[in-house]
């Protein structure tokens, strides 16, 4: 204790705190007269290690430790660095938020760690080494001022005023990974699902599949017929997302079928677009549909046009056209945001028959209140197959149904596991199910993370 007091008095920045440990004052502040007792009066964390961060591009390292059960709540873990093993150790040169006792638990992170019950007692910190380069360059451009191979770290605990650093000195070389093993289950599921889809597409060539009735798609013909009888146009909107989203692709797929029907009925379709690329695709789709229907002369490229890619300006323009032209039918397919109700309500007020289809789950209720028929979620993706009755497309819809069956089984399994774990926990303060319970917990962890 005497040695400690003398050290504090002689060295304003660095002082020997305990055997093998160093206490330093926080940067930019006057050293505290006495290192806070709160930093000294608990057992230090153990098993402090550094290693390469798994499943990354070779730019980060990972520091893990077994947490100290006696650490007070107002103390947080931090990391100091040095460009040589001997020190001196300084705070990280970029923003770093120290972590508390219950944060960054290894058992809660399945991306970098396998699930083990024991990992509930371990914590981790990820150090992004590119942040050193960004600081060195003063920008986000990479400039090797810090040599990653010479960076050493120490884990510490901190309050607002002081830091206590622990041995050992930590060092790890980041390694570039060519496969992200945390996505292995994803790859497995995706591969199996793709094989199932291709199997059903192949089977569909030989066998007829039953597909349940979708009222909204059955009403498409009715809507087009109504427009023909009334001599009014049909409005078809592909949503507000760009061509890179699958819901917009599904909407343009459906547009091909609708346009073909429109051409057959000798009616008129107008497609106001939110995105110029979507406009180009829609022009081509409608033109081909008219050609296929044997009515190339009836195609008018001016009917597929761009308005703007500003959300409310687009709505104002489309609503204005609805009010002026009084379309007999409005189709809203694709992804929508807050404008869904504005479009739906104005269309409804003009007396048009309205069919909507979106995978934007928060907008579905708005379409349900304002439209006559709504394709909910996946029905939008099945619409093209449903209307064309093309066996190959129906096969993929069947495959989705099979995947849903698997998901239902997984959900039931999750329910059973959840109840079993709950009962076991009630009977025994911990968990009486042993290694099986650990596996069930892992399953539930995955389940909670991804569903």
């Amino acid at each position: 204790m005497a040695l400690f007091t003398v050290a504090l008095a002689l060295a304003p920045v660095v002082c020997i705190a305990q055997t093998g440990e160093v206490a330093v004052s926080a940067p930019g502040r006057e050293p505290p007269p006495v290192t806070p007792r709160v930093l000294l009066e608990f057992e230090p964390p153990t098993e402090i290690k550094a290693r390469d961060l798994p499943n990354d591009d070779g730019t980060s390292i990972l520091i893990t430790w077994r947490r100290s059960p006696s650490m007070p709540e107002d103390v947080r873990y931090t990391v100091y660095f040095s460009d040589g093993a001997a020190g001196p150790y300084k705070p990280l040169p970029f923003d770093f938020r120290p972590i508390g006792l219950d944060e960054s638990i290894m058992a809660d992170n399945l991306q970098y760690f396998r699930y083990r019950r024991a990992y509930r007692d371990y914590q981790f910190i990820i150090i992004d080494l590119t942040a050193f380069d960004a600081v060195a360059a003063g920008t986000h451009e990479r400039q090797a001022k810090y040599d990653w191979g010479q960076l050493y770290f120490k884990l510490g605990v901190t309050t607002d005023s002081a830091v206590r650093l622990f041995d050992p000195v930590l060092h790890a070389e980041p390694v570039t990974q060519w496969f992200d093993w945390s996505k292995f289950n994803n790859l497995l599921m995706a591969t199996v699902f793709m094989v199932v889809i291709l199997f059903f597409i192949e089977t569909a060539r030989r066998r007829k599949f039953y597909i349940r009735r979708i009222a909204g798609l059955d009403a498409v013909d009715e809507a087009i017929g109504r427009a023909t009888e009334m001599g009014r146009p049909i409005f078809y909107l592909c949503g507000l997302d760009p061509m890179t989203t699958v819901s917009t692709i599904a909407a343009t797929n459906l547009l091909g079928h609708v346009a073909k029907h429109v051409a057959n009925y000798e009616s008129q379709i107008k497609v106001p677009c939110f995105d110029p690329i979507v406009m180009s695709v829609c022009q081509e789709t409608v033109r081909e549909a008219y050609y296929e229907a044997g009515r190339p002369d009836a195609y008018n490229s001016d009917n597929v046009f761009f308005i703007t890619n500003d959300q409310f300006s687009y709505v104002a323009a489309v609503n204005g056209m609805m009010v002026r032209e009084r379309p007999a039918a409005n189709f809203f397919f694709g992804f929508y945001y807050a404008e869904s109700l504005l479009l739906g309500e104005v269309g409804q007020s003009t007396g048009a028959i309205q069919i909507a289809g979106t995978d934007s789950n928060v907008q579905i209720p708005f379409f349900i209140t304002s439209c006559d028929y709504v394709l909910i979620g996946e029905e939008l993706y099945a619409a093209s197959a449903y209307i064309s009755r093309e066996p190959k497309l129906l096969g993929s819809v069947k495959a989705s149904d099979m995947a849903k069956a698997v998901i239902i089984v997984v959900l039931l399994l999750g329910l059973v596991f959840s109840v079993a774990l709950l009962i076991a926990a009630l009977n025994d303060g911990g968990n009486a199910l042993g290694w099986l319970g650990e596996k069930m917990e892992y399953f539930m962890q995955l389940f909670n993370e991804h569903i």
Partner: protein
Amino acid sequence: MMFLRRQLPVVIAFVLGMFTLVIFYIPAAPMQGIGDRLKIFVTIIGAFAMLLGINSILGQHITKIRKRRPGYGYSWVLILGFVAMMIAWIPWWSAPPEGSAAYYPWGGLENPQGAFYWMFFWILVPMQATMFSILAFFIASAAYRSFRAKTLEATVLLVAAVIVMLGRVPLGTSMTSWLPDAGFWSSLRLETMTSWLLNIPNAAGFRGIVLGVALGIIATSVRIIFGVEKTYMGGGD
């Protein structure tokens, strides 16, 4: 010609689709770098496509003016607005004063004295806000139509909606604040019922939709990558 129109797009869709799929599993910087560059291509194509969009909208309105179609005066408003905003954005006398990164006497949102700034914040933004605010009235009319208790389902919807609406405002929660905080009776407090409705039946329904959507997206992607679905190229399947 047929190869360019039919086979080549399918080949491009397959190669780029599979490549994008594969690099999702590869964290190494070289592969992610290629992926990032592909995204830049999309942005570049989008920028060029904007010219097509401008051509489309201006062409429409110029035709309307030329043929004196009803309401052609509004087409003048559009064209004048388009030209005014474009000119105002141009950095006139663009030499920046000492010490400043850029100086646009007319253009740019950085200059509060500029014409572009004025038009953007005092014309465009209020008009956008006006459109958005109409939503409040449409929500009321849509709610009125939906909540008329004509059927059992509509009645359930009405009751649930009333509970959720009351449970989200202080006046509503104060109505049941006399009930105890814990125990059986606490579950009858409006905010507790609201949380239950939102977190259990509502969340279950949403998750069901989301799962279906996810599978639908994968199925559609596979159909496009493997060339089973070709409607997006125009024409039949």
